[in-house]
């Protein structure tokens, strides 16, 4: 009996907390079922882009419609949602998507990475290690990593089917021949489970190693291009490289001006028109948690000096 009354309570909570006149989590159930079926196939074929019938959402393509549709199809009343945009919880895109789901699905929202059951992200993976049972949903603008090299969908499909990825390495080789190193710094292509080459969405290559053997499920949604793809937990994700030019991530000589971290991804912030700048953590929650624990950075931006440009 207790189980039944628990269910009923949840059901009424659902009606109470969600916006009147809208479906739960905005999408209708028919659409959700279609996206759910696509998501399951995406999980079963790691790194393969499954086409789906992307719907029009109440915001333009390019603002995270793919990620929102994936989140809307998986989210339930018991979930806790975190949304980040370039690592920050407090930017326009993140705030609005969080509010959208708080209104339409009645879910709890959080800024704390470890409290979230679903994390929707635009272009970053949080610094805190993700756990098993968490799901990270990426917003993807262009899902096809081969598109810049081969514009024909028919051809890229064949290349994926035959793991015919020589051209990707030629691209990286040309980069090395021109500049002495691979200069691609974001959206750095990865190979999933030794088969599909996949676009990790425009995350900095700093985040690529986090995708490898991640305990959390990774789902990718591209709304305009109508593709869903996935990486199951504990799956090999390898950034493309060469034996004599192994994959490398960015590093900084500075530390975060606010929390002093020297291990996180840093954003450069220009603070005046005289060239003063400071470096701060891109992951706002990671930075705030460190500061709450008493960590301190060098603080105010240093003054611009002539020797800086020499």
């Amino acid at each position, binding site marked *: 009996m207790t189980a039944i009354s628990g269910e009923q309570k949840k059901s009424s909570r659902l009606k109470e907390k969600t916006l009147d006149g809208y479906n739960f989590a905005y999408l209708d*159930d028919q659409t959700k079922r279609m996206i759910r079926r696509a998501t399951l196939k995406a999980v079963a074929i790691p790194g393969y882009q499954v086409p789906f019938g992307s719907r029009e959402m109440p915001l333009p393509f390019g603002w995270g419609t793919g990620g929102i549709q994936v989140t809307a199809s998986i989210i339930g009343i018991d979930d806790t949602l975190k949304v980040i945009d370039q690592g920050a919880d407090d930017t326009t895109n993140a705030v609005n998507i969080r509010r959208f789901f708080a209104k339409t699905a009645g879910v709890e929202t959080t800024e704390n990475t470890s409290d979230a059951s679903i994390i929707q992200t635009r272009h970053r993976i949080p610094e805190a290690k993700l756990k098993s049972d968490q799901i990270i949903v990426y917003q993807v603008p262009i899902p096809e990593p081969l598109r810049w090299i081969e514009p024909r969908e028919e051809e890229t499909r064949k290349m994926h089917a035959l793991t015919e990825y020589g051209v990707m390495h030629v691209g990286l080789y040309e980069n090395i021949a021109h500049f002495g190193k691979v200069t691609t710094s974001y959206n750095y292509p990865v190979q999933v489970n030794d088969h599909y080459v996949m676009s990790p969405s425009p995350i900095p290559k700093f985040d690529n190693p986090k995708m490898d053997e991640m305990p959390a499920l990774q789902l990718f949604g591209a709304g305009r291009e109508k593709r869903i793809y996935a990486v199951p937990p504990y799956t090999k994700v390898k950034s493309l490289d060469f034996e004599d030019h192994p994959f490398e991530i960015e590093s900084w000589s500075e530390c975060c001006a606010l929390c002093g971290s020297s291990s996180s991804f840093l954003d450069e912030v220009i603070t005046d028109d005289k060239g003063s700048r400071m470096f701060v953590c891109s992951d706002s929650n990671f930075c705030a948690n460190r500061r709450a624990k008493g960590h301190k950075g060098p603080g105010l931006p240093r003054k611009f000096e002539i020797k800086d440009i020499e």
Partner: protein
Amino acid sequence: MALLQEPTDNIPVETGFDDPVYESQIVFRKILKVMSEPGTIKKIKNKLSAPAPMMKATAAVCLTLMDFQTKVWLDLPRDSEVSKYLKFHTGLRIVEHSSEADFVVFFSAPDELPPLNLGTDENPETAATVIIQTQSLDDTKKLKLTGPGIKKSRFLNAENIPTSLWDHRGKANSLFPKGIDIILTSSEKLSALPRTTKIKMIKTEKG
């Protein structure tokens, strides 16, 4: 209105989800969990009833994933109680040949799989999802699973599934990215074996 004109014997007495939106989401998350972490077992807690021989978990999976867009093949006659139940609650399309189906449901595990859609190299996602109902599901060391979604290895035991079926599955999945994804159900339990999961049979004393 069309529904009202249907002869009443097409309306099943067994119930589906009380609250389809809320309950199908919970069931889907369980399917997503077992599909992304093959060999894990989840329990369905919904209070739906299904006509024999359909078990609760099988019914929950079907009601969650199927609708008028899905072609389904059952190893039961077209006029069985189960097809009536599924047609009424989901509006699915029952097909004559297993090779046309998006979902293939076995209420008793076959020795070998019938002709199935394995998808194509360019569109592997069109492959069929096979739902197999078994006598019991647990983590006894009968099948050793490795692959994406599994940290090192995981064990699974699905009772009453003949070895020949696993061999057949292995052959189909050697054509990766083509292949078949299996959802296993047993009373209220649920597990899955996507095409990427490698299965090794553990030898017992009986051989």
